[in-house]
């Protein structure tokens, strides 16, 4: 019974795929893949790289899972990343609000606030004005990079602050700082969605928004909230990104990353129609995407092939989730059996 419980968990399949990719990587690399070194008390290694580089995607996937659970989509996260990076870097470098004197903490708070605002804007469009989520978030996706350019005045703002670099490159007890951020966020959201009724409300809203409304759930507020959370997490990812490249690049920060975030959720097995969701499953989805990127590098083929691999992966995963496809396969399988039997 215990065993079936584990395999039935939504996170099991993505976890298994992730482990399979890791094993495959270990074999093709002849074991060097698993190697971990401790240099100056910091952990180094391929797996650490995957987790650290995947932290942005994991943050986005966490927010995206909740948005998708309510039956929505947020395609503005990449632009929100650009905005938050622009706000933070401009403040740290003193280009805007020089009164703050380049205070990193203030910069981070304001950047996150910008993310909250972006999320609330999306939420209002979806929940109050009742615009389709893709279209509603499309507006900010198109405008977001422009707004980020407005903040940086069209330049690439560079920062030189070790405190700011810490967001991406820092270590605590030998483990990269972004890992703690992801862990913290995942634990908090898990507590909220599993230990309170909030998770149930999300699923109810996604399954049948009208029925949930009649059942007394404040559907509008729930939707507003998930977009706000998604915006905030996107802003967090934007901070990690800009700390990583030590500056704000409004044109390229988080470009097309929304697609990867949605893909991570889809790989995690959460239906894009809304309803049942699993945040751990999406986290493994994000890790799968990141490890495929690393794998393609390790195989020594052109990194551009990653896109093709991703495309094939999307098709396989989506087909495996499609009931119609399973029926077709079963039919073909049965027919072959009959033929073989005859």
């Amino acid at each position, binding site marked *: 019974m215990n065993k079936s419980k584990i395999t039935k968990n939504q996170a099991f399949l993505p976890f298994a795929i992730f482990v399979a990719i890791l094993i495959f990587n270990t074999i093709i690399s002849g074991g060097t893949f698993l190697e971990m070194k401790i240099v100056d008390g910091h952990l180094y290694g391929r797996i650490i790289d995957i987790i650290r580089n995947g932290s942005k995607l994991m943050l986005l996937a966490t927010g995206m899972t909740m948005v998708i659970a309510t039956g929505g*989509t947020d395609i503005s996260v990449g632009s929100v990343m650009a905005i938050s990076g622009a706000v933070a870097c401009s403040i740290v470098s003193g280009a805007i609000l020089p009164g703050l004197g380049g205070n990193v903490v203030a910069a981070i708070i304001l950047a996150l606030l910008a993310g909250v605002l972006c999320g609330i804007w999306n939420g209002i*469009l979806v929940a109050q*004005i*009742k*615009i*389709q989520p*893709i*279209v*509603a978030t*499309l*507006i*900010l*996706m*198109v*405008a977001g*990079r*422009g*707004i980020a*350019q*407005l903040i940086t005045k*069209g330049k690439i703002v560079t920062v030189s602050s070790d405190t700011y670099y810490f967001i991406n490159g820092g270590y605590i007890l030998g483990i990269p700082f972004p890992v703690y951020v992801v862990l913290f966020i995942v634990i908090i959201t898990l507590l909220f969605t599993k230990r309170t009724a909030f998770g149930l409300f999300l699923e109810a809203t996604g399954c049948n928004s009208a029925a949930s409304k009649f059942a007394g759930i404040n559907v509008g507020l729930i939707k507003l909230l998930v977009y706000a959370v998604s915006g905030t997490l996107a802003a967090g990812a934007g901070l990690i990104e800009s700390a990583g490249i030590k500056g704000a690049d409004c044109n390229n920060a988080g*470009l*097309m990353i929304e*697609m990867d975030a*949605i*893909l991570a959720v*889809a790989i995690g097995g959460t239906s*894009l*129609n809304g309803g049942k969701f699993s945040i751990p499953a999406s986290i493994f989805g994000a890790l799968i995407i990141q490890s495929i990127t690393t794998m393609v590098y390790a195989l020594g083929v*052109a990194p*551009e*092939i*990653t*896109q*093709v*691999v*991703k*495309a*094939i992966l*999307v*098709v396989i995963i*989506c*087909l495996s*989730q*499609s*009931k*119609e*496809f399973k029926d*077709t396969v079963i039919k073909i399988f049965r027919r072959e059996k009959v033929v073989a039997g005859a």
Partner: protein
Amino acid sequence: MKSRIKAKGEISFSNVSLLITIILFLSLFIGGSLRYDRFFSLSTFFNLFNDNAYLIIAAVGTTFVLLTGGIDISIASTIAFTCVLSASLLRGGVPAVVVIPIVLSIGLGLGLGMGSIIHYFKLQPFIVTLAGQFLMRGLCAVISTESIPISNEFYKAAALNKILIGRAKIYYYVFITFIVIGGAYYILKYTKFGRSVYALGGNEQSAVLMGLPVARTKIAVYGINSFCAALAGVIFSFYTLAGYSLQNIGLELDAISSAVIGGTLLTGGVGTVIGTTIGVLIQGIIQTIVTYENLNTWWTKVTIAALLCIFIIIQRIISIKAEKKKGK
């Protein structure tokens, strides 16, 4: 009976939307003419077509998909793939007469494939076309990650030959765009297939019950869209005379927003090709005005997003009113 009332309501809705779009286009044009010397000319108007010929074709294709209530985010990659593949084939010495049919049929095949997966396996169009987007962009990079110039005589001729009317010029390839607009208009308005497209977007279940060929229609719209994208790619390679794997990132969103500004409802069932064309021209004219104002190009994006927002809200208000009317 009920469906007839609904259809009537939708037609008036699309008329209002189209009217707003046309008024906006004219006022932008007049505004620009009043503000700048030399803005008001046939050449400014023709240049809108010269510069946006490929986008119009792509947006017309997207309109088909949007009308059925679907979405296709793979077209930008398809355009890039078409350009890169044509450029590399041409460099290999394959004649243009062979290259163009090849790339067009690849586009058509891709669309039909995605359409079939969407229809038969009941998958979300967004995710299937996302896979298409990754695939085409990846294949581009597989062919070449560097920009390949095109030096084929036919392509050069297509890129440079134009008709002069006074000082205004119109390139030959723009006429392909006109043919596409005309053809799409005719198909949507006067053929059984076109009416099925609208019916499918209005209500898929009713369309099935009415005995309309839902499978064929649904697969065909994705085929048409990807074919249009490939054709847009051919025109784009005329326009730039090069193929580059990172071309046109995000163009699918330009196409979708043009359609929305042109009055297409993303829930399906409402919209016209003419509206979409004007939607593209509005984006083009904003770009022109931004250039005249000597502003940074990102102002174009912000303005378009603001317009998009206004239009979507207007659409919501109109459809809420229509719902209330129906309620009475």
